[in-house]
């Protein structure tokens, strides 16, 4: 646990009569992808929000280990520090890219913003970095001055990814990154994410209801039901040989290609 990048113990959260999280433990190591799967209402999105510091749990703690090796209790972290973390070392890819992008700012401006927020003051350099990242997410760099309103859903999501990764975060939270996209677009995007994550050594907490996405991207998996983790382990092991009845149900309900 001591060299895990992110650790959670005993997380609990209730909304009135509804249990969103109950006794949840989780660990994330540097460079690994952890998938959190379950149906709607399983608590997976709530877990993501608690792990990223967007929501405070009623019980339990989340620790983050910074690049210097120091451990921080997220709840004790002052708001400005958490915000700074989200702009540099951490990233968050939203299900709907319109929630994260500035729709009236050009693609280049969107990608360059985090650089400018961190103090980059060379226009040429910012533009070059933005063009490079557009290329890496397979958007034609000639569109650097185009406004995202003209982009397709898949392109918007790729732009969001570029905007998030431009500061080389060590840890990225992803909330259903391929939700709402059609199947062929999803496949291309998943391939892209897999390549980038592996090449850059980013740790990812990935929330998805889609087992196939988990299998493709994640090394380890957490299966949630009713706010509890019912099964956890290496993705292939859990999905090939599910122990818990709920996991078995999830796996068996996936149509075999």
């Amino acid at each position: 646990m001591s060299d895990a990048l992110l650790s959670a113990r005993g997380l609990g959260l209730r909304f009135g009569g509804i249990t969103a999280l109950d006794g949840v433990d989780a660990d994330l190591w540097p460079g690994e992808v952890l998938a959190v799967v379950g149906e709607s209402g399983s608590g997976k999105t709530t877990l993501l929000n608690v792990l990223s510091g967007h929501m405070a749990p009623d019980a339990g703690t989340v620790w983050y280990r910074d690049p210097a090796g120091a451990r921080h209790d997220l709840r004790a972290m002052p708001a400005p520090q958490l915000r700074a973390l989200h702009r540099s070392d951490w990233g968050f890819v939203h299900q709907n890219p319109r929630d994260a992008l500035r729709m009236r700012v050009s693609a280049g401006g969107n990608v360059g913003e985090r650089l400018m927020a961190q103090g980059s003051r060379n226009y040429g350099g910012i533009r070059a970095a933005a063009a490079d990242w557009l290329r890496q997410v397979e958007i034609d760099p000639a569109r650097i001055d185009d406004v995202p309103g003209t982009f397709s859903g898949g392109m918007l999501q790729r732009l969001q990814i570029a905007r998030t990764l431009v500061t080389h975060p060590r840890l990225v939270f992803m909330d259903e990154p391929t939700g709402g996209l059609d199947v062929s677009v999803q496949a291309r995007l998943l391939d892209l994410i897999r390549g980038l994550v592996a090449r850059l050594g980013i740790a990812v907490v990935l929330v998805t209801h889609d087992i196939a996405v988990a299998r493709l991207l994640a090394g380890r998996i957490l299966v949630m039901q009713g706010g509890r983790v019912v099964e956890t382990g290496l993705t292939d092991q859990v999905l090939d040989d599910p122990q818990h009845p709920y996991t078995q149900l999830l796996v068996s309900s996936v149509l075999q290609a």
Partner: protein
Amino acid sequence: MTYNFAYLDEQTKRMIRRAILKGVAIPGHQVPFGSREMPLPYGWGTGGIQVMAAVLGPADVLKVIDQGADDTTNAVSIRRFFARTAGVQTTTRTAEATVIQTRHRIPEVPLHEGQILVYQVPMPEPMAKLEPSRAETRRMHGLAEYGLMHVKLYEDIARLGHVSTSYDFPVMVNGRYLMSPSPIPAFDNPKLGGMAALQLFGAGREKRIYAVPPYTEVRSLDFDDHPFRPVRAPGVCAMCGSGTSYLDEVVTDDRGTRMFVCSDTDYCGERAAMQDAAE
């Protein structure tokens, strides 16, 4: 009825002075203050007037300019207001004034120590057009999160080749706070930094006061490879021949004939008088 000196009661002046002190202690930071309704409308200089009322003393000599001129209607109106409620001596000579209230210009003549320049500010929040929520901009100032402002500059350069903002050009004060210098032309921005006089900014309707103490570093936002460049009309003043002052364009007939004249009437008048004397 007789009014208190400079219209406001002493409690109110004290409240305003406390806000000013906070502003001077934290250069460029907007300090909320309990702006009062004044007999002039919001948007017409009530912030500047309240700041002025709080710092004015019986021995002060007051100059009021609008668009650089002493004789524009609102400058006249404000000067009269203080003449009536404070009985202070007034002047049109920049060098003779101890306190100057200005709208949209910085005088051409460099100010000296001991002078106070009071700016009228319509919109104190430099990021207002980019982020309408004051709660959010307050957070951005508190955390020094100014990326959004630079995004705007980036967008201008990407689209037009240069920054499109020509007045009310945002500045970084003392390396910490992003500030609106009020709608002075960008041409005047270089005068803000290192000024020997105290600069006070009052926004009555928005209820904010801020300040730049003497000899403070003030930098207009730019990129290393697209440095800030102040712009003025190319040409010389038709009255005094100045090629360095900010010029107003005057259309002199209905065929579009135009000429350029210094916006700062005191500066122009002085130069013209010196030239006449020399001849």
